[in-house]
Protein backbone atom coordinates (compact mmCIF):
# COMPACT_ATOMS: atom_id res chain seq x y z
CA UNK A 1 0.00 0.00 0.00
CA UNK A 2 1.25 3.40 -0.99
CA UNK A 3 1.52 6.10 1.66
CA UNK A 4 -0.76 8.13 -0.60
CA UNK A 5 -3.54 5.61 0.03
CA UNK A 6 -2.86 5.58 3.76
CA UNK A 7 -3.41 9.34 3.77
CA UNK A 8 -6.99 8.79 2.59
CA UNK A 9 -7.95 5.59 4.41
CA UNK A 10 -9.83 5.61 7.67
CA UNK A 11 -11.09 2.91 10.00
CA UNK A 12 -14.11 1.08 8.57
CA UNK A 13 -15.63 0.14 11.91
CA UNK A 14 -19.06 1.69 12.28
CA UNK A 15 -18.52 3.26 15.67
CA UNK A 16 -15.28 4.90 14.51
CA UNK A 17 -16.77 6.88 11.62
CA UNK A 18 -17.22 10.03 13.65
CA UNK A 19 -14.08 9.80 15.75
CA UNK A 20 -11.09 11.96 14.78
CA UNK A 21 -8.89 9.22 16.24
CA UNK A 22 -9.79 6.81 13.43
CA UNK A 23 -7.52 8.68 10.99
CA UNK A 24 -4.77 8.19 10.10
CA UNK A 25 -4.34 4.49 10.73
CA UNK A 26 -1.04 3.70 12.41
CA UNK A 27 1.43 1.31 10.79
CA UNK A 28 2.68 -1.47 13.03
CA UNK A 29 5.52 -3.90 12.30
CA UNK A 30 5.60 -2.38 8.84
CA UNK A 31 7.93 -3.70 6.20
CA UNK A 32 8.55 -1.08 3.53
CA UNK A 33 9.56 -1.26 -0.09
CA UNK A 34 10.24 1.31 -2.74
CA UNK A 35 8.85 0.97 -6.24
CA UNK A 36 9.93 2.97 -9.24
CA UNK A 37 6.92 4.99 -10.29
CA UNK A 38 6.86 7.38 -13.22
CA UNK A 39 6.60 10.94 -11.80
CA UNK A 40 3.28 12.64 -12.45
CA UNK A 41 3.60 16.25 -11.23
CA UNK A 42 0.13 17.25 -12.47
CA UNK A 43 -1.37 14.50 -10.37
CA UNK A 44 0.54 15.67 -7.31
CA UNK A 45 -0.60 19.23 -7.87
CA UNK A 46 -4.18 18.01 -8.13
CA UNK A 47 -3.96 15.93 -4.95
CA UNK A 48 -1.95 18.38 -2.84
CA UNK A 49 -4.90 20.41 -1.49
CA UNK A 50 -6.63 17.20 -0.43
CA UNK A 51 -3.65 15.72 1.41
CA UNK A 52 -3.91 15.77 5.17
CA UNK A 53 -0.46 17.13 5.79
CA UNK A 54 -0.41 16.66 9.52
CA UNK A 55 -1.48 13.03 9.08
CA UNK A 56 1.30 12.56 6.55
CA UNK A 57 3.80 13.97 9.04
CA UNK A 58 2.53 11.55 11.66
CA UNK A 59 2.83 8.61 9.27
CA UNK A 60 6.33 9.60 8.16
CA UNK A 61 7.46 9.93 11.77
CA UNK A 62 5.91 6.59 12.75
CA UNK A 63 7.77 4.91 9.90
CA UNK A 64 11.03 6.47 10.99
CA UNK A 65 11.47 8.94 8.13
CA UNK A 66 13.14 12.31 8.72
CA UNK A 67 10.72 15.03 9.84
CA UNK A 68 8.59 16.57 7.12
CA UNK A 69 8.28 20.36 7.04
CA UNK A 70 5.50 21.69 9.22
CA UNK A 71 3.44 22.94 6.36
CA UNK A 72 2.65 21.42 2.99
CA UNK A 73 4.52 22.77 -0.01
CA UNK A 74 2.69 25.45 -1.94
CA UNK A 75 1.36 24.77 -5.43
CA UNK A 76 4.06 27.14 -6.71
CA UNK A 77 6.77 25.02 -5.14
CA UNK A 78 5.34 21.98 -6.86
CA UNK A 79 5.26 23.70 -10.20
CA UNK A 80 8.87 24.72 -9.82
CA UNK A 81 9.79 21.08 -9.47
CA UNK A 82 13.10 20.21 -7.95
CA UNK A 83 13.70 18.48 -4.67
CA UNK A 84 10.33 19.15 -3.03
CA UNK A 85 8.41 17.41 -5.78
CA UNK A 86 10.91 14.60 -5.96
CA UNK A 87 10.67 14.00 -2.19
CA UNK A 88 6.90 14.12 -2.19
CA UNK A 89 6.72 11.77 -5.15
CA UNK A 90 9.01 9.28 -3.44
CA UNK A 91 7.11 9.45 -0.19
CA UNK A 92 3.56 9.26 -1.52
CA UNK A 93 3.80 7.28 -4.73
CA UNK A 94 6.89 5.09 -4.38
CA UNK A 95 6.96 4.12 -0.73
CA UNK A 96 4.89 1.04 -0.01
CA UNK A 97 3.91 -0.86 3.09
CA UNK A 98 4.22 -4.46 1.94
CA UNK A 99 3.72 -6.36 5.19
CA UNK A 100 2.48 -5.42 8.62
CA UNK A 101 -0.62 -3.98 10.19
CA UNK A 102 -2.59 -0.76 10.25
CA UNK A 103 -4.01 0.03 13.63
CA UNK A 104 -6.98 2.26 14.41
CA UNK A 105 -6.27 4.80 17.14
CA UNK A 106 -9.92 4.75 18.18
CA UNK A 107 -11.03 1.11 18.40
CA UNK A 108 -7.67 -0.63 18.16
CA UNK A 109 -8.75 -2.77 15.23
CA UNK A 110 -5.75 -4.10 13.29
CA UNK A 111 -5.96 -4.34 9.53
CA UNK A 112 -3.44 -6.84 8.20
CA UNK A 113 -1.34 -5.93 5.17
CA UNK A 114 0.02 -8.76 3.06
CA UNK A 115 1.88 -8.39 -0.19
CA UNK A 116 0.91 -4.75 -0.13
CA UNK A 117 -2.82 -5.43 0.12
CA UNK A 118 -4.65 -4.31 3.25
CA UNK A 119 -7.50 -6.49 4.41
CA UNK A 120 -10.53 -4.34 5.20
CA UNK A 121 -13.05 -7.16 5.48
CA UNK A 122 -14.82 -6.76 8.78
CA UNK A 123 -16.72 -9.27 10.89
CA UNK A 124 -20.37 -8.29 10.52
CA UNK A 125 -20.82 -7.08 14.10
CA UNK A 126 -18.35 -4.25 13.44
CA UNK A 127 -20.03 -2.97 10.28
Amino acid at each position, binding site marked *: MKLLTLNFLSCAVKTCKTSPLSFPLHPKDAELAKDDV*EPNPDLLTNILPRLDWSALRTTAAELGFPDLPETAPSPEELVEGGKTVQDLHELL*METQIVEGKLVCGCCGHEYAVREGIANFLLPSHLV
Partner: protein
Amino acid sequence: MSRPEDTLSADVHYDDVEARKYTTSSRIQNIQASMTQRALELLDLPGPSLILDVGCGSGLSGEILSAVPPDEGGPHAWIGMDISASMLDVALQRDVEGDLLLADIGQGVPFRAGAFDAAVSISAIQWLCNAESSETSPAQRLARFFGGLYQSLKRGGRAVCQFYPKNDVQRQMITAAAVKAGFGAGLLEDDPETKNVKVYLVLTVGGDATGGRDITSVVEGMEGVDVMDSRKKGTKGGKGEIKKGSKAWIMNKKEQMERKGKVVKASSKYTGRKRRIQF
Protein backbone atom coordinates in the same frame (compact mmCIF):
# COMPACT_ATOMS: atom_id res chain seq x y z
CA MET B 1 -28.46 -17.60 -19.02
CA SER B 2 -27.43 -18.45 -15.52
CA ARG B 3 -26.06 -15.68 -13.39
CA PRO B 4 -23.52 -16.65 -10.74
CA GLU B 5 -24.70 -13.55 -8.86
CA ASP B 6 -27.93 -15.38 -8.08
CA THR B 7 -26.43 -18.33 -6.34
CA LEU B 8 -22.93 -17.58 -5.12
CA SER B 9 -21.18 -14.84 -3.24
CA ALA B 10 -18.56 -13.03 -5.30
CA ASP B 11 -15.56 -14.21 -3.32
CA VAL B 12 -16.70 -17.81 -3.77
CA HIS B 13 -17.42 -17.43 -7.47
CA TYR B 14 -14.12 -15.69 -8.22
CA ASP B 15 -11.79 -18.36 -6.88
CA ASP B 16 -8.28 -18.95 -8.20
CA VAL B 17 -9.45 -20.89 -11.24
CA GLU B 18 -12.21 -18.48 -12.22
CA ALA B 19 -10.03 -15.41 -11.61
CA ARG B 20 -7.40 -16.74 -13.98
CA LYS B 21 -9.91 -17.83 -16.59
CA TYR B 22 -11.66 -14.45 -16.42
CA THR B 23 -8.50 -12.41 -16.73
CA THR B 24 -6.84 -14.34 -19.53
CA SER B 25 -9.85 -14.35 -21.83
CA SER B 26 -9.10 -11.87 -24.59
CA ARG B 27 -12.81 -11.49 -25.23
CA ILE B 28 -13.38 -10.35 -21.67
CA GLN B 29 -10.26 -8.16 -21.73
CA ASN B 30 -11.65 -6.31 -24.75
CA ILE B 31 -15.12 -5.85 -23.34
CA GLN B 32 -13.86 -4.59 -19.97
CA ALA B 33 -11.42 -2.24 -21.70
CA SER B 34 -14.03 -0.66 -23.93
CA MET B 35 -16.52 -0.26 -21.11
CA THR B 36 -13.86 1.40 -18.97
CA GLN B 37 -13.06 3.72 -21.84
CA ARG B 38 -16.71 4.58 -22.10
CA ALA B 39 -16.81 5.29 -18.36
CA LEU B 40 -13.80 7.59 -18.69
CA GLU B 41 -15.51 9.43 -21.48
CA LEU B 42 -18.50 10.01 -19.21
CA LEU B 43 -16.30 11.10 -16.31
CA ASP B 44 -14.72 13.71 -18.57
CA LEU B 45 -11.77 14.33 -16.23
CA PRO B 46 -9.78 17.50 -16.87
CA GLY B 47 -6.39 16.08 -15.86
CA PRO B 48 -4.58 13.33 -13.93
CA SER B 49 -6.95 12.27 -11.17
CA LEU B 50 -7.24 10.00 -8.18
CA ILE B 51 -9.90 7.40 -9.00
CA LEU B 52 -11.57 4.71 -6.92
CA ASP B 53 -12.11 1.47 -8.87
CA VAL B 54 -15.00 -0.33 -7.19
CA GLY B 55 -14.82 -4.09 -7.67
CA CYS B 56 -11.48 -3.70 -9.45
CA GLY B 57 -10.92 -7.44 -9.76
CA SER B 58 -7.68 -8.38 -11.49
CA GLY B 59 -7.18 -4.85 -12.82
CA LEU B 60 -8.63 -5.07 -16.34
CA SER B 61 -10.52 -1.83 -15.74
CA GLY B 62 -7.82 -0.14 -13.68
CA GLU B 63 -5.07 -0.62 -16.22
CA ILE B 64 -7.09 1.45 -18.68
CA LEU B 65 -7.07 4.29 -16.13
CA SER B 66 -3.28 4.03 -15.82
CA ALA B 67 -2.85 4.00 -19.58
CA VAL B 68 -4.52 7.32 -20.41
CA PRO B 69 -1.78 9.40 -22.08
CA PRO B 70 -0.92 12.95 -20.91
CA ASP B 71 -2.43 14.59 -23.99
CA GLU B 72 -5.74 12.98 -23.05
CA GLY B 73 -5.60 14.14 -19.43
CA GLY B 74 -3.91 11.11 -17.86
CA PRO B 75 -2.41 9.03 -16.54
CA HIS B 76 -4.67 8.61 -13.54
CA ALA B 77 -3.83 7.02 -10.22
CA TRP B 78 -6.34 4.53 -8.86
CA ILE B 79 -7.15 2.61 -5.73
CA GLY B 80 -9.10 -0.60 -6.19
CA MET B 81 -11.42 -2.41 -3.80
CA ASP B 82 -12.39 -6.03 -4.30
CA ILE B 83 -13.84 -8.80 -2.19
CA SER B 84 -12.09 -11.63 -4.03
CA ALA B 85 -8.58 -12.41 -2.81
CA SER B 86 -8.06 -14.56 -5.91
CA MET B 87 -8.84 -11.69 -8.27
CA LEU B 88 -6.50 -9.40 -6.33
CA ASP B 89 -3.85 -12.06 -6.45
CA VAL B 90 -4.02 -12.10 -10.23
CA ALA B 91 -3.81 -8.30 -10.16
CA LEU B 92 -0.60 -8.56 -8.15
CA GLN B 93 0.89 -11.06 -10.55
CA ARG B 94 0.03 -8.75 -13.43
CA ASP B 95 1.82 -5.96 -11.60
CA VAL B 96 -0.96 -3.39 -11.99
CA GLU B 97 -0.17 0.17 -11.02
CA GLY B 98 -3.16 0.76 -8.75
CA ASP B 99 -3.19 0.22 -5.03
CA LEU B 100 -5.38 -2.67 -3.90
CA LEU B 101 -7.66 -3.25 -0.93
CA LEU B 102 -9.39 -6.47 0.03
CA ALA B 103 -12.79 -5.12 0.99
CA ASP B 104 -16.52 -5.67 0.68
CA ILE B 105 -18.20 -2.60 -0.80
CA GLY B 106 -21.42 -3.74 0.85
CA GLN B 107 -19.74 -2.87 4.16
CA GLY B 108 -18.99 0.67 3.05
CA VAL B 109 -16.15 2.66 1.51
CA PRO B 110 -13.45 3.29 4.14
CA PHE B 111 -11.97 6.56 2.94
CA ARG B 112 -12.13 9.99 4.45
CA ALA B 113 -14.52 12.53 3.01
CA GLY B 114 -13.71 14.02 -0.36
CA ALA B 115 -10.76 11.72 -1.08
CA PHE B 116 -11.41 10.94 -4.75
CA ASP B 117 -11.84 12.98 -7.89
CA ALA B 118 -13.96 10.23 -9.37
CA ALA B 119 -14.96 6.59 -9.17
CA VAL B 120 -15.53 3.86 -11.71
CA SER B 121 -17.09 0.48 -11.31
CA ILE B 122 -17.14 -1.97 -14.18
CA SER B 123 -19.39 -5.06 -14.03
CA ALA B 124 -19.47 -5.26 -10.24
CA ILE B 125 -22.32 -3.59 -8.40
CA GLN B 126 -25.06 -6.01 -9.49
CA TRP B 127 -23.42 -8.34 -6.97
CA LEU B 128 -24.77 -6.12 -4.20
CA CYS B 129 -28.30 -7.20 -4.99
CA ASN B 130 -27.72 -10.49 -3.22
CA ALA B 131 -27.59 -10.69 0.52
CA GLU B 132 -24.23 -12.11 1.55
CA SER B 133 -25.56 -13.37 4.84
CA SER B 134 -28.70 -13.53 6.91
CA GLU B 135 -27.55 -10.50 8.87
CA THR B 136 -27.71 -8.09 5.95
CA SER B 137 -30.14 -7.28 3.19
CA PRO B 138 -29.35 -6.03 -0.32
CA ALA B 139 -31.00 -2.72 0.56
CA GLN B 140 -28.70 -2.31 3.53
CA ARG B 141 -25.60 -3.20 1.54
CA LEU B 142 -26.54 -0.86 -1.28
CA ALA B 143 -27.15 1.93 1.23
CA ARG B 144 -23.76 1.40 2.84
CA PHE B 145 -22.02 1.32 -0.50
CA PHE B 146 -23.60 4.40 -2.04
CA GLY B 147 -23.48 6.30 1.26
CA GLY B 148 -19.77 5.59 1.57
CA LEU B 149 -19.10 6.32 -2.09
CA TYR B 150 -20.88 9.65 -1.85
CA GLN B 151 -18.79 10.64 1.16
CA SER B 152 -15.51 9.57 -0.38
CA LEU B 153 -15.93 11.68 -3.53
CA LYS B 154 -14.99 15.32 -3.64
CA ARG B 155 -17.80 17.83 -4.17
CA GLY B 156 -18.46 18.14 -7.86
CA GLY B 157 -16.99 14.65 -8.36
CA ARG B 158 -18.50 11.94 -10.49
CA ALA B 159 -18.88 8.19 -10.52
CA VAL B 160 -19.74 5.91 -13.43
CA CYS B 161 -20.91 2.39 -12.64
CA GLN B 162 -21.46 -0.03 -15.51
CA PHE B 163 -23.49 -2.94 -14.25
CA TYR B 164 -25.58 -5.92 -15.35
CA PRO B 165 -29.00 -5.64 -13.80
CA LYS B 166 -30.86 -8.91 -13.75
CA ASN B 167 -34.15 -7.13 -14.41
CA ASP B 168 -35.95 -3.81 -13.97
CA VAL B 169 -36.39 -4.41 -10.27
CA GLN B 170 -32.63 -4.53 -9.76
CA ARG B 171 -32.07 -1.56 -11.98
CA GLN B 172 -34.57 0.43 -9.94
CA MET B 173 -33.24 -0.80 -6.64
CA ILE B 174 -29.69 0.24 -7.50
CA THR B 175 -30.62 3.62 -8.94
CA ALA B 176 -32.94 4.43 -6.06
CA ALA B 177 -30.21 3.60 -3.55
CA ALA B 178 -27.80 5.98 -5.30
CA VAL B 179 -30.33 8.79 -5.35
CA LYS B 180 -31.16 8.19 -1.71
CA ALA B 181 -27.48 8.58 -0.84
CA GLY B 182 -27.60 12.07 -2.33
CA PHE B 183 -26.29 11.54 -5.85
CA GLY B 184 -27.70 13.08 -8.97
CA ALA B 185 -28.19 9.97 -11.08
CA GLY B 186 -28.70 9.17 -14.73
CA LEU B 187 -28.86 5.85 -16.55
CA LEU B 188 -27.25 5.54 -19.94
CA GLU B 189 -27.71 2.56 -22.22
CA ASP B 190 -25.42 1.61 -25.06
CA ASP B 191 -26.92 -0.75 -27.61
CA PRO B 192 -30.35 -0.57 -25.97
CA GLU B 193 -32.76 -3.39 -26.55
CA THR B 194 -30.11 -5.75 -27.80
CA LYS B 195 -28.61 -8.73 -26.09
CA ASN B 196 -25.41 -6.84 -25.46
CA VAL B 197 -26.99 -3.74 -23.94
CA LYS B 198 -24.65 -1.99 -21.52
CA VAL B 199 -26.07 -0.01 -18.64
CA TYR B 200 -24.13 2.86 -17.08
CA LEU B 201 -25.22 4.57 -13.91
CA VAL B 202 -23.77 8.08 -14.06
CA LEU B 203 -23.58 9.78 -10.66
CA THR B 204 -22.69 13.29 -9.64
CA VAL B 205 -21.99 14.68 -6.21
CA GLY B 206 -24.01 17.81 -5.65
CA GLY B 207 -22.58 20.70 -7.56
CA ASP B 208 -21.27 23.57 -5.52
CA ALA B 209 -20.10 27.01 -6.51
CA THR B 210 -16.65 25.70 -7.34
CA GLY B 211 -17.68 24.04 -10.51
CA GLY B 212 -19.84 21.03 -9.79
CA ARG B 213 -21.08 19.87 -13.13
CA ASP B 214 -24.57 18.60 -13.19
CA ILE B 215 -25.80 15.25 -14.33
CA THR B 216 -28.02 16.80 -16.96
CA SER B 217 -25.03 18.20 -18.79
CA VAL B 218 -23.27 14.84 -18.63
CA VAL B 219 -25.91 12.79 -20.28
CA GLU B 220 -27.75 15.46 -22.19
CA GLY B 221 -28.52 14.41 -25.70
CA MET B 222 -27.46 10.85 -25.11
CA GLU B 223 -29.76 8.12 -26.05
CA GLY B 224 -31.81 6.18 -23.56
CA VAL B 225 -31.00 8.51 -20.74
CA ASP B 226 -33.13 8.70 -17.65
CA VAL B 227 -32.37 11.42 -15.18
CA MET B 228 -33.38 10.95 -11.59
CA ASP B 229 -32.63 13.69 -9.17
CA SER B 230 -33.04 13.61 -5.42
CA ARG B 231 -32.35 17.31 -5.12
CA LYS B 232 -35.48 19.37 -5.36
CA LYS B 233 -36.09 22.62 -7.15
CA GLY B 234 -33.63 25.42 -6.85
CA THR B 235 -30.73 23.38 -8.08
CA LYS B 236 -29.67 23.51 -11.66
CA GLY B 237 -30.71 19.98 -12.41
CA GLY B 238 -34.27 20.49 -11.31
CA LYS B 239 -35.49 22.50 -14.28
CA GLY B 240 -39.08 21.65 -14.82
CA GLU B 241 -39.37 21.25 -18.56
CA ILE B 242 -40.00 18.02 -20.37
CA LYS B 243 -39.13 15.11 -18.18
CA LYS B 244 -35.62 14.02 -18.99
CA GLY B 245 -35.48 10.63 -20.55
CA SER B 246 -39.06 10.73 -21.71
CA LYS B 247 -39.60 9.89 -25.33
CA ALA B 248 -40.56 13.49 -26.04
CA TRP B 249 -37.42 14.77 -24.42
CA ILE B 250 -35.18 12.46 -26.36
CA MET B 251 -36.91 13.25 -29.64
CA ASN B 252 -36.65 16.91 -28.89
CA LYS B 253 -32.96 16.56 -28.12
CA LYS B 254 -32.34 14.49 -31.19
CA GLU B 255 -33.92 17.16 -33.32
CA GLN B 256 -31.85 19.86 -31.72
CA MET B 257 -28.71 17.86 -32.21
CA GLU B 258 -29.55 17.01 -35.78
CA ARG B 259 -30.11 20.66 -36.52
CA LYS B 260 -26.68 21.35 -35.16
CA GLY B 261 -25.33 18.65 -37.40
CA LYS B 262 -24.08 16.45 -34.61
CA VAL B 263 -23.95 12.71 -34.61
CA VAL B 264 -26.94 11.82 -32.53
CA LYS B 265 -26.30 8.27 -31.62
CA ALA B 266 -23.83 8.57 -28.79
CA SER B 267 -23.33 4.85 -28.80
CA SER B 268 -22.43 4.41 -32.46
CA LYS B 269 -18.84 3.63 -31.63
CA TYR B 270 -19.90 0.89 -29.30
CA THR B 271 -22.63 -0.74 -31.31
CA GLY B 272 -22.44 -3.94 -33.23
CA ARG B 273 -21.02 -6.11 -30.54
CA LYS B 274 -22.35 -9.60 -30.80
CA ARG B 275 -22.19 -10.92 -27.32
CA ARG B 276 -22.31 -9.74 -23.82
CA ILE B 277 -20.13 -10.91 -21.05
CA GLN B 278 -20.76 -14.47 -19.97
CA PHE B 279 -19.79 -15.62 -16.58
